[in-house]
């Protein structure tokens, strides 16, 4: 049996892939810190605490698989392979971004790398993703479309409409709910009647799984399995990834959670957990870790320099591509 892309076996290749995953998560964390250091960082929804979701999901996808996500997009875009410099330029509104500063964090896209784009309307990308999956089906590309959305979108009617059509038309679509426990300030239990979010997909007979979204290997492994099933023609899947939002909803939002709760949530920091695991499994050489951190810092420094040097768009560019 061929191992799925996201579930490395325990050999040398496994070790390389695991270090890559850690480094990728570290890049997301450091990149967002650099973003907040900008003179005008803008309105940003950070992925801090949800790095394992972005990195794990992207590890399970092929380049041809279109990925769509919510407005909490920064980690997803980086993990999908968007270069940090242009992404940073996009996030602060410069012409050097992939969307020339028009999209920003909530709408950034780069279809050439399989990143079909973020969407700033909660749940808005769900039916779009179904349509993208339908195009893959009709054009027989063999690609699997993947859509990330938050627990907030589970209260939106369009999720039902999307689950229904995906099941009915047997679409090659993997729906992934990132359940970070809150829609801005509203906890899941105050917003959603179902205790288990996977129950939402049950009436449509869509296979589901609820996974620890702080465990990058678990995310990668389960997503790879779902993607493989869907690619094999078994129809859509629904995954719930349980994770913690370690930052406030946005960089401009007040923190609504108590300090004790935040302390508890930080125990579920995916970088902390993964480093602990890799060290316990033998990756203990400090030089290895410090080298990795230095490489990430250099990459983030270069991104900051790129964004700094990037030109602002001319005002008239606001009228292009309307």
């Amino acid at each position, binding site marked *: 049996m061929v191992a799925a892309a996201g579930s490395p076996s325990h050999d040398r290749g496994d070790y390389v892939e695991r270090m890559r995953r850690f480094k990728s998560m570290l890049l997301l964390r450091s990149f967002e810190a650099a973003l907040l250091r900008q003179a005008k960082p803008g309105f940003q929804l950070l992925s801090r605490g949800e790095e394992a979701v972005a990195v794990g999901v992207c590890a399970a996808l092929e380049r041809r698989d279109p990925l769509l996500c919510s407005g909490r997009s920064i980690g997803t875009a980086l993990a999908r392979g968007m270069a940090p410099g242009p992404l940073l330029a996009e996030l602060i509104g410069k012409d050097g971004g*992939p969307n*020339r500063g028009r999209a920003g964090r909530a709408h950034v896209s780069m279809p050439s790398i399989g990143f079909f784009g973020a969407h700033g309307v909660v749940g808005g990308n769900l039916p779009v993703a179904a*349509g993208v999956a339908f195009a893959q089906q*009709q054009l027989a590309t063999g690609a699997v479309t993947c859509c990330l959305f938050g627990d907030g979108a589970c209260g939106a009617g369009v999720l039902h409409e999307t689950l*229904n059509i995906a099941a009915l038309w047997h679409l090659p679509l993997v729906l992934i709910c990132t359940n970070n426990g809150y829609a801005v300030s509203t906890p899941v239990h105050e917003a959603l009647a179902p205790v288990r979010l996977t129950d939402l997909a049950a009436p449509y007979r869509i296979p589901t799984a609820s996974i620890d979204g702080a465990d990058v290997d678990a995310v990668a492994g389960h997503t790879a399995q779902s993607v493989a099933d869907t690619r094999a023609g078994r129809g859509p899947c629904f995954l719930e990834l349980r994770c913690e939002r370690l930052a406030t909803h946005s960089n401009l939002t007040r923190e609504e959670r108590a300090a004790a709760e935040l302390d508890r949530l930080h125990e579920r920091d995916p970088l902390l957990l993964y480093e602990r695991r890799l060290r316990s499994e033998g990756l203990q050489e400090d030089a290895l870790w410090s080298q990795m951190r230095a490489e990430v810092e250099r990459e983030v420094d270069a991104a900051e320099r790129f964004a700094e040097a990037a030109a602002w768009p001319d005002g008239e560019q606001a009228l292009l591509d309307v």
Partner: protein
Amino acid sequence: MSKVFFREALARAISEEMEREPRLFLLGQDIAGHGGSYAETRGLFERFGPARVRNTPVAEAMTVGFAAGAAAAGLRAMAFITYLDFLMLGLDALVNYAAKLRFKSAGQLTAPIVVKATAGAKGQGPTHAQSIESWLMNVPGLTVLAPSNPGDAYGLLKTALRAPGPVVFIDHKKLFPQGGVVPEREELIPIGSAAVRRAGRHLTLVAHSYMSVLALEAAKLLAAQGIEAEVIDLRSLWPIDWEALTGSVRHTGHLLTVEEGQVVCGVGAEIAFGLRERVPELRVARLGARRAPVAASPVLEAYTIPDAQAIVGAAHELLRRAANGQSTNG
């Protein structure tokens, strides 16, 4: 030229375009075996099969978003929304996604979709009757078409189905039983071109969709009274054919806009303002529905929506006030 019903003109345009473009598919309620609410897709399911002519559940939000996603990923889609009132359920995907996609992706993605919806009051009450096309004119990135006869419907729909999109194509319940001529051979009508339906020198009537039919009726009544009205059928609500409109009002000096929807921020308000910017001495008036929802009762509906007599009355009022040097803003 051959004489056909409005619905047949639509079916022919779609059929020819599906033949020409294998990536074009249709989705919407009751469009497959049933052949469309107004029989406007009759025969297409039989001809092109279930892969390309797809019935959807009652789910307009999904339908429009799905169409946009499929189109952005390489297909072309025509989505059928039974009544224009129901497009409100799909406006998020249309306005927030499809209309902005080319812009927000810096030209990397675009959504070549046509969303067809049926407007107009015809005895079906408050939420099966609205003409809200002026809302759509407000959205950068949307093309809005509203033909008034089978020939225009045929030529415009064909153009729309080849356009980069997104296009909203609005027809009207009262147009479906109307006959008209379509060319024997393929003919496309460019987006953004109005049509002069009748020449006249005293005032210009500007209308679209079914109101163009009534405006022509009104022009005949006015002619019997010695008033020569020029009738312009917009056909395309966005973009607007300012050249044709300006040319007409320059020689008539008087403009009466006629629409079935509300006049507040309506089609006529935009046309009148745009023309006054171009022709400052122009005398303008506007006519549209009275400010109330459309009732189910035929008596109440008729009271709310303008008819040919109301257009005649408004034309007289405009000319009388202009002659007396009074304000003419409708």
